[in-house]
């Protein structure tokens, strides 16, 4: 029999390609590659080919065997792939893991603010909540029986101050006593932030709570200027709230700073409404005097901000009580 190798190969490849399952493919494999198969037959025929045609015929026969073998392998692989599909996972089913906890939004806000100041070289400090009148008021130039105390309604403890007769201990009504403690213990240069809980006997409503958090900042050195205060806090606000804000410094009164200011922000694309976010000023010389610094030796700036208020403004929380309710669904949002 004379062989048309091209035709044979073409026919074989079509048959293999059209095989419907592995069984049929096996039939074709035996037909072509089996011990008595077509390929074997062709190679047996090689002996009968005229000498001069032998190399070419041999080459073609080899190529035919390789191509058929490859085609069968490929087809077989495709059948295996198909059966494997049954084992495929539904990757859209939920994964299984311990769910992570959530830091309270107040703590997150404190951490963010503190770390912004830390990168500038401020050091985080803390102070006690139970304080003396000396630290909470007198040292901060807030004398007894003075109307400036009106802004600082304070919880008093039944216990007496061990250092001062006839005065009760109190719960700090702001974090500013932290300034006094730091300055009593350290000489400038000073750059500290003091976060913590503070207490005021305020009736509770959507924007007031008898306990809340503040962060106090204090920078004291030989040549701190009012322009530094403006620059530092402008930089802070832009980093914390983003560039999309307007800012203003409005003169105000705090007994422990002079000049004093309140900082207001408004959203550039929001309502044209100014929102007060913090108080600040240049440290009053009376405060330096109280902590025993040499007169005129230093100047300083200080600021204090209410964490709840800032978190409410930044994240759109409308009721301060949300923070203390600790609804799991609130906690998980942040």
């Amino acid at each position, binding site marked *: 029999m004379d062989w048309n190798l091209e035709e044979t190969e073409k026919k074989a490849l079509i048959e293999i390609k059209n095989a419907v399952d592995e069984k049929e493919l096996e039939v074709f494999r035996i037909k072509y590659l089996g011990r008595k198969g077509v390929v074997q037959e062709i190679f047996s025929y090689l002996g009968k080919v005229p000498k001069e045609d032998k190399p070419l015929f041999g080459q073609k026969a080899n190529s035919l065997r390789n191509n058929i073998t490859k085609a069968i392998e490929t087809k077989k692989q495709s059948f295996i792939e198909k059966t494997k599909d049954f084992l495929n996972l539904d990757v859209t*089913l939920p994964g*299984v893991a*311990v769910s*992570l906890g*959530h*830091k309270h939004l107040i*703590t997150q806000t404190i951490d963010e603010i503190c770390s912004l100041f830390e990168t500038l*070289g401020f*050091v*985080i*400090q*803390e102070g006690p*909540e*139970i304080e003396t009148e000396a630290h909470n008021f007198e040292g901060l130039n807030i004398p007894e*029986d003075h*109307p400036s105390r*009106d802004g600082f309604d304070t*919880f*008093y*403890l*039944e*216990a007496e101050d061990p250092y001062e007769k006839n005065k*009760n*201990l109190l719960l700090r009504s702001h974090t500013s006593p932290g300034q006094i403690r730091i300055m009593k213990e*350290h000489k400038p*240069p*000073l*750059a500290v932030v003091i976060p913590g*809980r503070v*207490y005021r*006997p305020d*009736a509770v409503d959507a924007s007031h709570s008898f*306990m809340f958090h503040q962060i106090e900042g204090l*920078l004291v050195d030989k*040549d701190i*200027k*009012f*322009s*530094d205060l*403006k*620059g530092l806090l*402008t*930089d802070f606000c832009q980093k914390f709230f983003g560039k999309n804000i307007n800012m*203003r*410094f*409005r*003169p105000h*009164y705090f007994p422990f700073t*002079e*000049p*004093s*200011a309140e900082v207001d922000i408004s959203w550039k694309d929001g309502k044209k409404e100014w929102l007060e976010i913090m108080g600040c000023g240049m440290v009053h*010389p009376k405060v330096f005097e109280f902590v025993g610094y040499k007169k005129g030796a230093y*100047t300083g*700036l200080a600021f204090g901000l209410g964490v709840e208020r800032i978190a409410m403004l930044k994240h759109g929380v409308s009721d301060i009580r949300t923070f*203390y309710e*600790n*609804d*799991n669904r609130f*906690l998980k949002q942040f």
Partner: protein
Amino acid sequence: MKISLNWLKDYVSCGNSAEKIGHKLTMAGLEVEKISSYLNDKILELEITPNRADCLSMTGIARELSAILDKNFDSPKIRKFNFPVKRSDIKIQDKTGCGCYIGTVIEDIKIDEAPLWIRKRLESLGLKSINNVVDVTNFCLMELGQPLHAFDYDKVAGGKIVVRKAKDGEKIVTLDNIERVLDSSILVIADDQKPLAIAGIMGGVDSQVTAQTKNVLLESAYFDPVLIRRTSRKLGITTDSSYRFERRVDYERISIGAHRALALILTCAGGVITKYRKVSTGSYKKKKIKVMVSKNDINSYLGAEISFAQIKKILKRLDFGISVENKETLKVSPPSFRPDIVSKVDIIEEVSRVIGYDKLPLSLPKIQRVNIEPNKQRQRRKETEKALLAQGFSEIITFSMTDQNKLEMSEINATSGIKIKNPLSLDQEVMRSSLLPSTLSVVQTNLNRGEKKLKFYEFGKIYTENKEQDVLSLFLCGETLFDWRSKDRKIAEFYDLKGSVENLYSSLGITNLVFQAKEEPFFEKGQSCFIYQNKTKIGSLGLLKENVLAKWNIKERQCYFAQMDLEVIYRIEKNIKKFQPIIGYPSIVRDVSLAVKQDVSFQDIKNIIYENCGSLLSDVRFTEEYLGDKIEFGYRGLVFSLIYQSEERTLKEEEINDVHEKIVQELIQKLAVIRR
């Protein structure tokens, strides 16, 4: 404080735009909180800070505006009187309480309505018109900030005014028709027999000016700010007068106020001045203050470049006396109505706020390296926090105050904690001595709202014996890990919380802990333990008692709580960790299965193992506790593996047979365990 724009225009030409004026005032430190309309007038509501008593009047605000707008300030014309020789009978007994008292008697007046222009002025500020004399005193109060009071002179017994402390138990019915019981801390204006008015705060009904009044005594006085403040707080009355006296009235305005009012009374109500007397005790006079300040002082403090001319102009507009000492240095004498100005920084603030802070430059401070260690306690808390968040605990923040009832509900000694002297409500009466009550209140809220899987932590303080102590609390209830591949739903139990606690401590490098079965009053017996480090209790954890949960109306029964001292964590010293070589030789694992009596703990077993193991034991790994009925009653099954390993060679089975057998025999002998 309210001001009227129309009225303001009497003293300064400030234009018609209330918004513009409001903005200017706000940006100079006189915050305008609200602007409203009243007839054809605009009313601005200002928040005056406590240092600016001088701004509690129309003229005070006008003066400020004249400086801000750089416009002239026209103060009201004050008529001078030649007073009669006859003197009013005035006696100041309390010389510190009353610094000055001017009493003028006007006879034959005609009480009527005040003229329309006065009534309109008062009404625009929300003041009710009463009669011509009273309206004039109110008008002067609003115009000048000097409180005045008019008595019906015929009701003044003996025609005599005595400024004295009240007698204990003395009574007066004040103008608001309330009978007040006085005491010896309260200053009164009295006649021969009885108090006529509470000094500086409110007049009495008996001596008020009525339609029948013929003769009046006009009071203009200075009362001690502290005294007025204390009285006002004690009696719970704040009036336009007391508000100004306690912020200190201008002592030079006492006379001016009297003159201005007298002129208006004579115009509106007729009459003749018959008696006059001014008594000064001198206690109010403050030393005249002079402050030296240079242009350079101001500019270096502000980081600005303000001209000397501008500085002078601003101070002049604010009525400060100035004289140029030498080139660019001023000697400044603040006016009598600015007792808040005592030093250089005060002058600097005046200049800067009138210019406007927004017009001053910005700079970034040079921040030097600070020689203070960052707060270590906070750092340790942050590390603790990391370990808790990773284990799925969410942070709660609760109030530091609670009430005794909630402490009792939580089976915590109600007298522990620190009492607050002035709580606003009962739930603030005591500083908590445990985080449990506030945690339970959060748990209750969440369970009520259908949140059943709760895993909380809080860093808080507890307060005992006037000290505050940092603690950490954990709370756990509901399903632990949700795994849809397994049918079993695991509900949190003791070992889940204990595992978290162990994880936490080990992540912080604290390993030498002992857990001992023991319970707090709020824990179920046999379901809780104390945590000890070197024999010191550092915390406890366990299942909350059923009756505690019931009292809190919490239906969930599997609630676990832990509270731990942070002091132990604060004390951790960060040492550099040294690498421990990893042993390359294989280990041999021997399982041990024992039946042990109820009172034998795994800790007892471990102790015996460690006493007898020699150097080849590397670990004891617990695998199973069996509590079923396939074991003798009174016993439970414990399965664990002992892992043997040498750092130097591959161990042979025979080598450890002896050690292992010795351990098991010791357990059998000492703890009467049975091999299973």
